[in-house]
């Protein structure tokens, strides 16, 4: 699912720009944008979406700042950015907690910060937080699997997590665990990959040896999912069904085709970057969301983690990002 020259249209871009009154161009807004280097399908979609969305507005000027290799580096980069006094900052931190102080610094400098996805440890450090729902992902996956295996307390349920040292992975697993519990189910085998195809294949190959018969698998991340599916194919296993995570185009195609155990995937939409830019613009122009009565954009927006299945996959495919 790659190779052809990038067209943003296919990286999860909504196509929907601002609507209603807010569509009208206003005072020019310079948005400073910083997200970790795009070394992974989902992050890449985030950056592409942000750029694409900004391009849609005649009154938005986007200055992108490299996030460097780790949190301290991103902090340094942002200090430089703050010095340039953009109207608004959209920030996807390397690590929410570690950049909280910097966010606060920007706010104090009178620059509203839109905290994208990875949450600051202090709400006062951002003007608005828009994030995906990691816990919710686990919940959605849990419900899908729970409904199908309800009452089978002996069911073998495997979880293939992403990078295990990340807080977001912890949240996803908690949501999954808690939800399964409500069905009297539990995770019997849990492995963690690295968000990369190869690691997905590696841990899965071993996992399938550990569990000779599986009922369901939840894989946190459709990027590594390519490897997971490969390993399953190589082991010739079909006795179980699988749920993915994030909502990549590749995953959706498999769901549509039904050619793999992958029956569903729970979204963690990179479109949030587009929305973040829109919000930043409104903040910069002191507007609210036109469909809401408030004069300011909301303080907190948490995106639904939707469940994509064969039934509804068609309407999601335009949103699927290339892994």
């Amino acid at each position, binding site marked *: 699912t790659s190779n052809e020259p990038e067209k943003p249209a296919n990286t999860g871009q909504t196509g929907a720009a601002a609507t209603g009154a807010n569509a009208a161009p206003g005072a020019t807004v310079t948005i400073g944008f910083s997200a970790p280097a795009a070394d992974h399908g989902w992050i890449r979609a985030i950056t592409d979406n942000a750029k694409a969305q900004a391009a849609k507005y005649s009154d938005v000027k986007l200055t992108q700042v490299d996030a460097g290799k780790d949190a301290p580096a991103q902090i340094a980069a942002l200090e430089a950015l703050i010095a340039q006094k953009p109207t608004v900052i959209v920030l996807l931190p390397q690590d929410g907690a570690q950049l909280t102080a910097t966010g606060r610094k920007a706010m104090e400098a009178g620059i509203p910060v839109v905290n994208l996805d990875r949450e600051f440890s202090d709400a006062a450090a951002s003007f608005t937080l828009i994030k995906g729902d990691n816990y919710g992902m686990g919940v959605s996956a849990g419900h899908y699997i729970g409904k199908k295996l309800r009452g089978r307390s002996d069911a073998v349920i495997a979880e293939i997590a992403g990078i295990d040292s990340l807080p977001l992975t912890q949240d996803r697993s908690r949501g999954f665990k808690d939800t399964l519990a409500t069905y009297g189910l539990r995770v019997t085998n849990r*492995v963690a990959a690295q968000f990369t195809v190869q690691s997905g*294949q*590696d841990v899965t190959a071993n996992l399938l*040896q*550990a569990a000779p018969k599986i009922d369901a698998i939840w894989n946190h991340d459709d990027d590594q999912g390519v490897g997971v599916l*490969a390993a399953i194919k190589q082991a010739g296993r079909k006795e179980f069904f699988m749920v993915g995570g994030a909502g990549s185009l590749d995953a959706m195609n498999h769901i549509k085709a039904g050619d793999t155990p992958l029956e569903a995937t729970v979204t963690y939409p990179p479109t949030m970057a587009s929305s973040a830019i829109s919000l930043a613009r409104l903040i910069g122009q002191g507007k609210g969301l036109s469909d809401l009565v408030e004069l300011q954009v909301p303080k907190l927006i948490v995106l639904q983690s939707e469940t994509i299945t064969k039934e509804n996959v068609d309407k999601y495919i335009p949103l699927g990002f290339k892994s």
Partner: protein
Amino acid sequence: MTATTVGVTAHSGWWRSDRSEPVRRNLGLVAVLLILYTIGAITHPEIFLDADRLWSNELTVLKQASSIGVITVGMTFVMIAGGIDLSVGALLALASVWCTTLATQSYGVGVMIFVALAVGAGAGVVNGVLIAYGRLVPFIATLALMVAARGLAQKISGKLTQINTVDALNQIAIDKVLGIPVLVLIMLGVGALGWLLLNRTTFGRHTFAIGGNPEAARLAGIPIRRHTVMLYALSGLCCGIAALIVTAQATAGSSDHGNLYELQAIAAAIIGGTALSGGRGTIVGSLLGVLVFTQITNLFIINNLQLEWQLIAQGAIIVGAVLVQQFRVSQLRRN
């Protein structure tokens, strides 16, 4: 520090065939593997005491070891000659991406294989030339390629996973010959060829000589520079082979493939008795080293250990493993 070993090696069992110390080392590693199996048998008898499941589990371990195994063979040559190759992981990624572009895929499996090997070997030659003729220290030269090759791989792939639609290639990750997975056979084949090249040809002799005493090798008329280039080309070639393995396993090429392979390969070689300072090393030892590491991961997953415990245990096991080895070797020294 080499210092600590000096006193010891100075009188180590010289009178036996010069091969015997390595042999002991390898026996040590076999012992380590047996210990790992025992742990497996205790924690999961249903797998490790059931012939069929043990067999299929070990085949999986070997399959998962195959790519790093092939790379370690090349690494062993480089290290015996006193060098080091940090670029292996990146070269693997580059080769895998290059051989899975839509363009390449359209030419079919033959061309894909050729491209992977050519890219690997070619990049290896670059390493070798920088080192032999540019006089860069191997660490820096290969570090440069480690970084640049990844970048290039990302450029080519646009950081996207390049699904491989050529089944002929994907199939080698599935097929078996006489019950043995093709990937395993590839690893064993590369190992066997490597063993011959290292122990039964002048190329191997010269490799040892260059690592043991470069000046002496030079004054004995060995064309050191040419040899160096060939060594890194060999390592690069192994990366190309490994790239095909990984591409088949992942059914895709990606600039993320082979992440941290350099560290794993070097560690496996050293555990296997290859000296970072050159002059010593065996293919068998290196492959056993790889197996130890892969078996450890397998055990962790089977016992579904939490990440932090995996790491702590791994550190402990590495230390334990080497101590077990040393015990066998010192036995040799004593009598």
